[in-house]
């Protein structure tokens, strides 16, 4: 079997992630795809900590730690600097879901509309995990967090950030999952080939916040994709393409592995299943529709 994942490790030992951290795997794969000629801009998120305290950094690329809502805008500045210096260095904005869906959405929308040349990767662990599991607009319906206690669980659906980015008509938008590293790496490499703002949202489960056994991160990640809850797809210049078509697991199977959903009743779970089926159907139709317009 031919190994398609680059062997070079640009994330070193001694990082400060929790056991089973999806976010640290996501970074490891992302850097394998991007290579050494990369500058990372990281706002407040788990990775502000994972990278290591001063004077250490576990990444073998330069890192600029920036304020919470400025991943995209600070990266735009770095990107402009690379352009004026005539450098081809990739500028990576690397933010969590809170920094992307919530507080950083304005700066990201601005950069995307202008077409600033950055790769923006949101590692999505579906809540403010670094501050101790508070709900974000990426938190799915039904989930417990410390600010959405089980008795009053999150009643709003997860914001569809991917579609918001697609609506900016940027050249490339994709979802990914750490359980599918070849797909994730392929997408990052593809993103690198486009000028402008590229957005990749990678599901990065958090055992601490989702309340599951850290050994199950990959299994659970796979289930998120297989159940259609976190479909893998890409939108290249407006053309949708689903990366993994099989949908052979249920919402119930996925959520029963996680303490954050343990309070949910059968009725609520049925409702969630209906919504997932509907969204999946919609995605298939989008693929058909846009695929058709392409021809």
């Amino acid at each position: 079997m031919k190994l398609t994942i680059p062997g070079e490790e640009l994330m070193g030992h001694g990082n400060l992630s929790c056991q089973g951290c999806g976010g640290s795997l996501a970074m490891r794969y992302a850097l394998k795809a991007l290579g050494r000629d990369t500058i990372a801009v990281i706002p407040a998120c788990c990775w502000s900590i994972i990278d290591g305290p001063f004077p250490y950094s576990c990444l073998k690329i330069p890192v600029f730690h920036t304020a919470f809502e400025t991943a995209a805008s600070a990266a735009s500045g770095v990107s402009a600097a690379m352009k004026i210096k005539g450098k081809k260095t990739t500028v990576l904005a690397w933010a969590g879901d809170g920094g992307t869906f919530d507080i950083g959405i304005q700066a990201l929308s601005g950069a995307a509309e202008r077409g600033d040349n950055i790769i923006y990767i949101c590692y999505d662990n579906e809540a403010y995990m670094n501050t101790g599991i508070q709900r974000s607009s990426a938190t799915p319906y039904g989930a417990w967090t410390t600010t959405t206690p089980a008795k009053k669980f999150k009643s709003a659906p997860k914001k569809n950030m991917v579609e918001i980015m697609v609506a900016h008509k940027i050249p490339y938008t994709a979802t990914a999952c750490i359980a599918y590293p070849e797909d994730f790496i392929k997408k990052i490499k593809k993103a690198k080939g486009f000028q402008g703002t590229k957005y990749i949202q990678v599901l990065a489960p958090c055992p601490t916040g989702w309340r599951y056994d850290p050994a199950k991160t990959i299994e659970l990640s796979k289930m998120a994709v297989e159940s259609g809850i976190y479909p893998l797809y890409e939108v290249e210049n407006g053309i949708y393409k689903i990366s993994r078509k099989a949908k052979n697991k249920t919402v119930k199977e996925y959520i029963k592995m996680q303490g954050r959903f343990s309070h949910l009743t059968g009725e609520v779970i049925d409702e969630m299943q209906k919504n997932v089926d509907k969204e999946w159907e919609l995605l298939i139709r989008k693929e058909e529709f846009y695929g058709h317009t392409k021809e």
Partner: protein
Amino acid sequence: MKKVVTGNYAASYGAKVSRAEVVAAYPITPQTQIVEKIASFVANNEMDAEYIKVESEHSAMAACVGASAAGCRAYTATSAQGLALMHEMLHWAANARLPVVMANVNRAMGPPWTVWTDQNDSLSQRDTGWLQFYCENSQEVFDTTIQAYKICEKIGLPGMLVLDAFILSHTSEPVEIYDQDRIDKFLPKYNPRYKLEPSETHAFGGLTTPEWYYELRYKIQSAMDEGLKEIESVGKDFGKMFGRKYGLIEKYRCDDIDTLLVMSGSTASTGKEVIDRLRDNGERIGLARMRVFRPFPKQEMRKLAEDVNKIIVIDRNISFGNEGIFFSELKSALYNENTDIPVYGFIAGLGGRDITMKDIEGMIKKADGKPKDIIWWGLK
């Protein structure tokens, strides 16, 4: 070459001749002309810069911070609400030791909505670690932009030059634009020792425990101290090269005086007219124009205070619950040295109300007897 330009355009020309490489800006009245002019410079290839038309001032400063960290000379301009929105990133620029230079057109803060001048916007950013230069005229706006880059890049802190809304920003006057060759000689290309560079894998601004944070703050204070010397020496060199000398405080007719008037910004030029008139009448009064507010020129202020027996400060700003801000800072500078000089604190011209020669004469006359911390001039 002399050009008739507004204070705003003087700022734009300053950014151009300083060869700012990345400009990130968002429009706000009365700053707009600065960024419009830069947009036309860039569009006409008169200025080799990347201009990011950001969606907010917060992003403007974030982009400047990113560009500066990547080793570029970065520039922006703003005013009032825009400056307040930048606040978080002002700290970021200073604490990351990035010599971003910005023009702030002094506009009063809302509500109620206003576009006219006072200094509360910039003075609210007092403790962010930015150098602050208060300019009197368009030539100084232009000259200070060039000097600010030289000073800030030497000491590793950002600098804000401040000009009054409309009174200076929209008033045209002749400004000498020096030859680019000479400016390039005075202000060489920015090339910081540490920058975002894939061959050097540093992490900038990572989590720092109490073990080191404290020392990093001490280093900023040390850089501010160095800034005091640097402002004087760069101002002197600038004088040698271009014929206009600058320093921390401009002393106007401060020889043989018993009363010192302290002002800042464009209103100081009205103050100078008043001083001329009073000196002609034999009064022993001079004017200290505070050109630099951060770092605060304590020693120079103390020296000036040595030879007078009365100080009058006119503040176009107020720290609510206390008093005028220049007044406060000046009193505090004197406390350990000259505690017995009466200092009178006047508040005037908030929200752009005119401060006329008659007003200034009136305040000077009123500054008599037991000194007061806060005297509201011309209150209806």
